[in-house]
């Protein structure tokens, strides 16, 4: 009796597995047929198509078998009731990490400061680290809008672009220094943020995402087409590099001030500038972080989070949703602008190409992957997203495949981000007793 029910259950499992595997194989077939199934070959007169059955049959078969085995595996395990309240192992790990992070942060910081002087570091390492830090800063900036205020922004790169072009134009036209332009770049970006904020005040979620996506494209198209000001697709080149309190990082100093290496009696090295840029972005990123951490504990920050949780309740408590949203957009954009100015001075060249949608997507991915609202999660995700593809260079053409797979895996295991843990902004009983309910 028991054996027969077991058998029927198994048979049902096999049937279900076949069905699921068949579906997955069908999807794979639809994808593989046009993408891998045909090869264009040049004949004497025209381009022809060659049929490559092997490249279709093998992956489709692999998908079918893999999916079938997976469903059998899942079927055998008892369906576990998954409740929101019961924290999974990974949740506990995340909470542990977030708590323990307090002790790790000084070491991370020390590592970040020492990085350029470590024996293995070379120009490539420092450059990569600088890129990571740009994305960390952008992630922290976007975290204000998406993580705290809960406003899904798909056009964040627009503010990055506004900051970059502000500095590029002010510096090339008026010869203003980086340090004078930095606050202005932030200001212009914040204004752009508020400008975007007004029309989208009533929107939430998907609708907001679409409008911000459009806004990002508008800014890019303006940069591309307003030839007289932005020099169109050619971009702006020869943007002045930043100076160290007026000391330039050149082999020969210009009139007046000595160059950096002359002033400090060092032999000239191109790496000085790279290291300086690294520390510059490190400082900017840390300022962004300090600001966010601080403002989270102020009424505005709490209002942002409350707005994310429930806008209607916010209104019933007398919180002005308009102002609250606009400050989130404005401040988030401001840090994007700072990062943009840094980007312009680092590259010495800006063009609309650098501000395509994919950049917005990467920044958003960093925030979401890190765990919305989690500051250290952003760092982790930025390192993953920037360093992983770099490390993956050995994999050559499979690089992006592995990268995509890794992202899917992370989202499957940690659907709310790597370190989704929210530290309360203030406690009544101190840390020891507040453990119970914060699942």
């Amino acid at each position: 009796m028991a054996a027969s029910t077991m058998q029927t259950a198994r048979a049902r499992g096999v049937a279900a597995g076949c069905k699921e595997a068949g579906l997955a194989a069908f999807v794979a077939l639809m994808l593989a047929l046009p993408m891998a199934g045909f090869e264009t070959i040049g004949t004497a007169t025209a381009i022809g198509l060659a049929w490559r059955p092997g490249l279709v049959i093998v992956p489709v078969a692999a998908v079918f078998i893999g999916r079938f085995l997976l469903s059998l595996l899942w079927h055998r395990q008892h369906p576990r009731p998954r409740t929101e309240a019961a924290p999974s192992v990974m949740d506990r790990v995340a909470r542990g990490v977030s708590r323990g992070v307090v002790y790790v942060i000084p070491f991370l910081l020390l590592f970040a400061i020492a990085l350029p002087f470590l024996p293995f570091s070379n120009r490539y390492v420092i450059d990569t680290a600088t890129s990571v830090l740009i994305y960390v800063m952008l992630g922290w900036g976007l975290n204000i809008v998406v993580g705290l205020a809960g406003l899904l922004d798909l056009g964040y790169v627009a503010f990055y672009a506004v900051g970059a072009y502000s500095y590029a134009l002010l510096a090339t036209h008026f010869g203003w220094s980086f340090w004078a332009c930095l606050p202005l770049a932030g200001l212009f970006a914040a204004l752009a943020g508020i400008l975007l904020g007004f029309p989208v005040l009533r929107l939430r979620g998907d609708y907001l995402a679409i409008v911000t996506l459009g806004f990002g494209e508008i800014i890019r198209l303006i940069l591309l087409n307003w030839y007289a000001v932005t020099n169109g697709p050619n971009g702006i080149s020869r943007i002045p590099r930043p100076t160290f309190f007026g000391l330039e990082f050149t082999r020969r100093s210009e009139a007046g001030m000595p160059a950096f290496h002359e002033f400090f009696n060092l032999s000239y090295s191109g790496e000085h500038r790279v290291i300086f840029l690294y520390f510059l972005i490190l400082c900017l990123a840390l300022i962004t972080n300090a600001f966010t951490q601080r403002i989270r504990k102020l009424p505005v920050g709490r209002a942002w989070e409350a707005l994310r949780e429930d806008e209607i309740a916010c209104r019933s408590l007398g919180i002005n949703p308009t102002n609250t949203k606009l400050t989130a957009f404005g401040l988030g954009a401001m840090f994007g602008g700072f990062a943009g100015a840094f980007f312009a001075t680092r590259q010495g060249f800006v063009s609309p190409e650098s501000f395509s949608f994919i950049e917005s997507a990467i920044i958003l991915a960093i925030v979401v992957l890190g765990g919305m609202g989690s500051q250290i999660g952003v760092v982790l995700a930025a390192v993953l997203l920037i360093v992983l593809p770099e490390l993956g260079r050995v994999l050559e053409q499979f690089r992006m495949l592995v990268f995509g797979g890794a992202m899917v895996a992370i989202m499957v295991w940690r659907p709310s981000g790597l370190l989704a843990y929210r530290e309360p902004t203030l406690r009544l009983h101190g840390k020891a007793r507040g453990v119970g309910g914060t699942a």
Partner: protein
Amino acid sequence: MTQTAAQVHHVPLLTVEHMTMRFGGLLAVDDLSFVAKTCQITAIIGPNGAGKTTVFNCLTGFYKPTVGRLTLHHPRGPLLLEQMEGYRIAKEANVARTFQNVRLFAKMTVLENLIVAQHNVLMRASLCTVAGLFGLPRYRHAERAAVEKARYWLDKVQLTEYADWEARSLPYGAQRRLEVARSMCTDPILLCLDEPAAGLNARESAKLNELLCSIRDEQGIGLLLIEHDMNVVMEISDHIIVLDYGRKIADDTPQVVRRDAAVIKAYLGEEEEDELPPEVVEALKAERERSS
């Protein structure tokens, strides 16, 4: 307190005149007029779809009434609620509300929920964030005061030990009480409660009654209450307004309203008496005998 309470006792707090709310062809509220007084619990009752929540939504600025005047007799002078934007009704007119389906800031802690409610006070103290950003003493004092007020209300609703819990992890009854505490943290002069006892068991419901009565007696404010639970309504209200299909059919003390023929009819229907469960029919008969 007692002196001032005696002075303001039963002074009209909210005067609603000829309020009508129309959604397209649907007349949700039809020419409703009533007065709510300070230090009183005024209950609005009625069958499902009678327009009770619509009245609340008009009062708290979520809807603009099609016709009508809603005057709040604020100590600083009368305010016309129908002309005020939603958030300003809470901020400037000091009208607070709770919701039928609890609306807490789920992922924030209990304490944070109460601090967010004091947003406007803290915002002023932090000089729109500037003072707060630099940690000036002015802001730190204000924050400490805010935490003290939160602690007072936590004690009052018996949630002090859960202060650092996420709001969503509280049991339902506690969430209801927290929502009341949160609206009280905005220093209201009129508190509107939309079915506060919905989904509570008898013990929780009794606790809530106690809380509402103590708010009325100690804070000297007016309470406006929508409720289905007749035990709650009859026990704690000082004044009851009965709506049916958007129209007012009764407006009196609980003792009078419970014997009102129109009210009993609206609640139980006349024709379908045969289909009602026997115990309800019994109760209805007893009610009629008492009233005749």
